[in-house]
């Protein structure tokens, strides 16, 4: 019996000993960001450089833009790094964030079956959506309040299509991230709006291909902001600001521009083009 008791005790002690640190280390920040930046591998490329320079560890929670902003609103992140300008400006105006700066952009593409039954291919996003709607070809919508979802809704509106009224089963809101949306589109040969970064790093493409790209309206601006330390005293303001400053510095911008998948550049640094302060 002593054998069992001693081994159980040993296991317990070992577990407690190796129990993960319960509180984050002092010089680390939490960044609420989007699945597109995380899943494209951009953070894997940027963060080691930033940490190497400053010693500050960055922990990225990847969510939809809407959820990421909510995490910031609750004070559960130090920095928010997302891509929905209207929502970001509202976030700052409400006093949840300070000093939004633009960092980079990438672009959206419409992916769809290579056979293109809606004849959507081209470089005009609005025309492509009108044709998809007219032929009622299946379209997968994120439906998750993400930046991509917000952009998609703006495109439908601009195309003059009331998607809430569209009816039929061709328009499918799945309420999930970019990856699941691409997986579903691939499995059901549907059209889908995706950011280029996630598309490039997505491996299960099946019959899907890029059909619409290059429209200026498809440019997708990323902004970064510090969660307001006056509202949330636990925010690591100094470290968070250091991360933001680095992203827009020459070194950070260079690193963003350097990131490539299969030789293709995913994100285009454009810090300093415009800046909206609180």
């Amino acid at each position: 019996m002593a054998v069992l008791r001693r081994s159980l005790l040993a296991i317990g002690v070992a577990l407690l000993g190796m129990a993960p640190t319960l509180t984050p280390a002092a010089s680390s920040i939490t960044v609420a960001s989007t699945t597109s930046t995380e899943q494209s591998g951009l953070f894997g490329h940027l963060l080691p450089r930033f940490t190497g320079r400053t010693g500050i560890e960055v922990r990225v929670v990847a969510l939809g833009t809407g959820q990421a902003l909510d995490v910031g609103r609750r004070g559960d992140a130090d920095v928010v790094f997302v891509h929905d300008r209207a929502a970001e400006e509202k976030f700052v105006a409400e006093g949840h964030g300070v000093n939004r700066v633009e960092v980079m952009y990438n672009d959206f593409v419409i992916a769809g079956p290579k056979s293109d039954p809606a004849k959507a291919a081209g470089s005009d996003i609005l025309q492509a959506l009108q044709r998809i709607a007219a032929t009622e070809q299946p379209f997968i919508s994120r439906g998750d309040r993400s930046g991509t979802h917000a952009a998609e809704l703006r495109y439908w509106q601009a195309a003059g299509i009331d998607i809430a009224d569209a009816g039929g089963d061709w328009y499918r809101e799945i309420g999930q991230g970019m990856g699941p949306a691409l997986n579903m589109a691939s499995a059901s040969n549907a059209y889908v709006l995706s950011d280029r970064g996630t598309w490039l790093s997505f491996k299960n493409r099946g019959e899907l291909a890029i059909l619409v790209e290059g429209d200026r309206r498809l440019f997708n601006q990323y902004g970064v902001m510090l969660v307001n330390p006056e509202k949330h005293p636990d925010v690591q303001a100094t470290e968070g600001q250091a991360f933001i400053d680095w992203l827009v510095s020459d070194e950070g911008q260079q690193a963003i521009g350097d990131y490539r998948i299969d030789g293709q550049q995913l994100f285009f640094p454009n810090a300093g083009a415009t800046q909206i302060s609180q």
Partner: protein
Amino acid sequence: MQSLGDAFSMLGALDHDVMAIAWLSLRVSLSAVLLGSLVAIPLGALLAIVTFPGRPLVVAVVNAFMGLPPVLVGLIVYLLLSRSGPLGALGLLFSPGAMIVAQTVLAIPLLAALTRQIVEDAHRELDEQLRSLRLDVWQRIRVLVFHLRFSLVVAVLAAFGRAISEVGAVLVVGGNIDGYTRTMTTAISLETQKGDLPLAIALGILLIAIVLVVNGTASAMRAYTMRLYP
């Protein structure tokens, strides 16, 4: 099928990152089950040996809570641990500590319900004996839990299986942060989203292997000690 073939070839080349993820999953789930056991086994045993009005209702509720949806537990723990929540000052959200808390909450009803059932059956046989020895309630619980340790190991393993295989709770409270709170299940979910199905399956096979090793080790220990005390 091709994914499956690729998955097996990937297992041969497990890199450091994957091992770190597996180790984190193991640490979080074992810690949660250990903490959960410390709370739930005495409580389940207590529920088995005391009678009070409303006991059947409590038993029914505990049994029903075995099926708590992990994502709901995750959400509640998230709201509790959020900086804006009542326990925000702990700064636990998006850390392995938060994942341990969530999985502990998941494990407790399962452990308590199974413990109650196991103890109740043995209690019928031993109740008079233990009361005649003038043991108080907590001494009786200690003795019964000790007496039933081999059966309770199975309950603990069931709780471990539930903890290490759930994704909903750890994803919400841990945030799936690369190198910090990414577990086997959130990694599988992420790789599936990225469309990297072979890697997702490889991770899944590794997860099953871990569960098998833990169960095998526990069963071997159980068999060894059971031979001493049949």
